[in-house]
């Protein structure tokens, strides 16, 4: 009598997804430059799913300095900057920019080798007023800082 799984996932399908995730997680970290675009994370459509795909909700850290405007007049061009205080958060190898209310929250990933400062500046589209997250990965652990940006003109029209 049919599949009553509320998520619409069969056990087999779930195991397959889990297996793929494990295989990806087992990749050696050294080949960072050759690593692939995290396609599955980019395709997530909710903040919860994005964090889950990254490996869990990051812990809040004041070693991340995240600069975003409090009010963005134009959501199509919102400048963001992530800086890391290495005395609080050493060995950061990846930075993520996440926009909570966007259709796909993950906006950008920056991977840096040890001789590059974990620092990134760019401009992103913000669909509507909501939180922006800067996530840093150091030694496999995730850290974050969140900031709210108010948008007076949406980012999806432009």
């Amino acid at each position, binding site marked *: 009598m049919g599949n009553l799984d509320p998520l619409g996932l069969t056990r087999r399908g779930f195991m397959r997804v889990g297996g793929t995730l494990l295989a990806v997680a087992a990749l050696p970290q050294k080949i*960072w*430059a050759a*690593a692939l*675009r*995290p396609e599955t994370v*980019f395709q997530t459509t909710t903040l919860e799913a994005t964090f889950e795909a990254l490996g869990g909700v990051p812990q809040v850290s004041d070693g991340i300095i995240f600069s975003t405007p409090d009010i963005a007049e134009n959501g*199509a*061009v*919102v*400048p963001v*900057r992530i800086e890391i205080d290495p005395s609080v958060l050493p060995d950061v190898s990846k930075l993520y920019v996440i*926009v909570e209310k*966007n*259709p*796909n929250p*993950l*906006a*950008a*990933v*920056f*991977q*840096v*080798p040890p*001789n*590059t*400062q974990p*620092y*990134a*500046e*760019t*401009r*992103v*589209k913000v669909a509507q007023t909501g939180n922006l997250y800067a996530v840093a990965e150091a030694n496999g652990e995730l850290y974050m800082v969140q900031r709210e940006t108010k948008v007076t003109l949406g*980012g*999806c*029209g*432009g």
Partner: protein
Amino acid sequence: MASRMRIRAQLKEDYCEVKALMRHPMETGMRKDQSGAAIPANFIEDVQVLHNDAVVVQAYWGAAVSANPFLGVRFKGGAQGDVVKVVWRDNRGDSGSGETTIR
């Protein structure tokens, strides 16, 4: 696709600051044109910053990065006159690059 890029690399105290401005529409694929037809997604997926041919930053972008994207990064070990290059590739396979020397 025009691939003109403005790029600057400048030596600061103990790092080299790279700033680049790419020309790209960064279409999300969710917009519609006047007739209501969907405008296909067209955005930069992959950006690399190279210092003397070594990758110093590898970035992956989604469609949420603004049109005509701006990138600012910092790396160590640069010297005046070194070549810094920014290379991008979009979801349609188009690519572009810009090159400068460290000032």
